[in-house]
């Protein structure tokens, strides 16, 4: 709606953590001092079914409470959704798409039929397997999204994330480090 507001749409499959990603993203962005919203799309809940979730970020209080139809950023957790879901629906002319994939940006842009400079890729699944030990791409994708949005403080994000993980996984330090490293790696590895 307004210039200072950023709107994001996440695409995933039931069980992949698209909802968790949006909620977690909102929490860590609050730590950078911005207003946030996070909400999932509610429908029948089935493992593997396409699901969406949403974020708003703003410097000023967010009072709008309607759905997001023209996202500035689209994050795709599962590249197989590109064939079955209109993932770039309503995306603005300068909107950006971030895809978890092993293909390069040009190849994805061709499939999505949009300009190559709107497309960013990162192999979040591989990063997750190597750092967390499981294919849960939502955490690394947070790092990629922070990088592409650009004006967010990754230091604050990582610090807040560590605090949250420590509270949750006090007895499993390897999970904490794995998640933090996955965010850092995706932040550094996401490319056009």
């Amino acid at each position: 709606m307004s210039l200072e507001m950023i709107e994001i749409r996440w695409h995933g499959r039931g069980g992949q953590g698209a909802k968790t990603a949006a909620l977690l993203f909102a929490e860590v962005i609050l730590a950078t001092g911005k207003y946030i919203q996070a909400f999932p799309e509610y429908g029948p809940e089935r493992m593997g079914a396409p699901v969406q979730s949403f974020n708003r970020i703003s410097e000023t209080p967010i009072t709008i409470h309607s759905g997001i139809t023209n996202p500035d950023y689209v994050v795709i957790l599962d590249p197989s959704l590109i064939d079955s879901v209109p993932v770039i629906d309503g995306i603005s002319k300068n909107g950006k798409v971030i895809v978890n994939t092993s293909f390069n940006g040009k190849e994805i842009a061709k499939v999505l039929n949009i300009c190559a400079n709107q497309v960013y890729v990162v192999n979040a699944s591989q990063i997750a397997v190597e750092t967390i030990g499981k294919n849960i791409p939502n955490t690394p994708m947070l790092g990629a999204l922070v990088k592409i949005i650009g004006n967010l403080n990754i230091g604050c994000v990582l610090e807040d994330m560590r605090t949250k993980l420590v509270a949750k996984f006090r007895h499993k330090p390897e999970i904490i480090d794995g998640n933090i490293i996955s965010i850092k790696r995706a932040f550094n590895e996401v490319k056009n």
Partner: protein
Amino acid sequence: MIKTIYPKGKLVAKTGNEVMAEAMRQIEPDVVAAYPITPATEILQIFSQFVADGIVKSEYVAVESEHSAMSATIAASAAGARAMTGTSSQGLSLMWEMLYIASGLRLPLVMAEVNRAISAPINIHCDHSDTMGARDAGWIQIYSEDSQEAYDNMIQAIRIAEKAKLPVLVTTDGFIISHCMEVVEIYPDADVKTFVGEYRPERYLLDTKRPYTLGSVALQDYYFEHRYLLSQAMKESKNVILEVAKKFKKTFGRKYGLYEKYMLDDAEVAIVVIGSTAGTAKVVVKELRKKSVKAGLLKIRIYRPFPAEEIAKDLAHIKAIAVMDRADSCSGAFAPVYSDVVASLYANGVICPKVINYVYGLGGKEIRTEHIVNVYEMLERVASGAEKPSNNIKYINVRES
């Protein structure tokens, strides 16, 4: 950088359900009896976890239906306990006969209510049909635009209920607020506890030194007097609500009234609306003001008691008003909020504004800024005399054939 309004406040990212449970944890009522239902489930789920973890000393009664939930809450309150519950939609419907008993017995219960459509067809999403159906039940009804208001309203509700001796329900819009994570300022436990204070009922059934009868028969001779007193209590509760709001402002810094005026004082066209849509409409008002359109908004926070005289005074100068209802009375005439607003205007001698009734968003149907822009455009045409106001309900974003 976001700052807190209350110096000791803390900013957290929480959903509407989470902050309602948080308020309940801080209030720490003696008894909570509930039968969880979508989209209010989490409120009770989170609260029951607080009980299980020993974080609160409250007694949690897991009952077998909402009718029993309300009955158990009534019984606890009658016994002298501070008692709360939570529900939504079909759950509130099943409580229906007990709702009237809670208010008839003048018990200060507080209910966290999440607005959801009523079946059929089955639908879990937001509209206000559930609480509008309970509007004559003698309960104070407080609606919240967002999670912050839901949290603040819950804290105020306890004091209001106990001072007015009336049950209070606090609502959020199902999913839109109940499941939306936003920035909420939470106050320290001790400060909330000080604000709500200890509950000392004047009379209660477990007071063996002063036994009394509650819930007796009152036929032709005294029933009417009881109901008359209930009606008077509802009217007088406006002052209680305003007093509590004043104390809340003084303590925590946030200002609340019976309703909120948004750019209304110099407005020529205005929308009257309840709940989260007020927030979306504020975005539209701001944009229209940039284009020199004198748009304004009145958001009803307290729907029962209805602030009739106050609203009539604040809307008297508006040329064209749209009252947007998120419930349809199926009356063959108009929806509930419209009927209340128009009656208030007319009874107070305000006959100049043209007032149109819109019904929107039933069963969670999207209401976007462009829909609200259309409403203001219609109001401008009516205000200028270019178009005659409709004397029928206008429906937003619905397939009419």
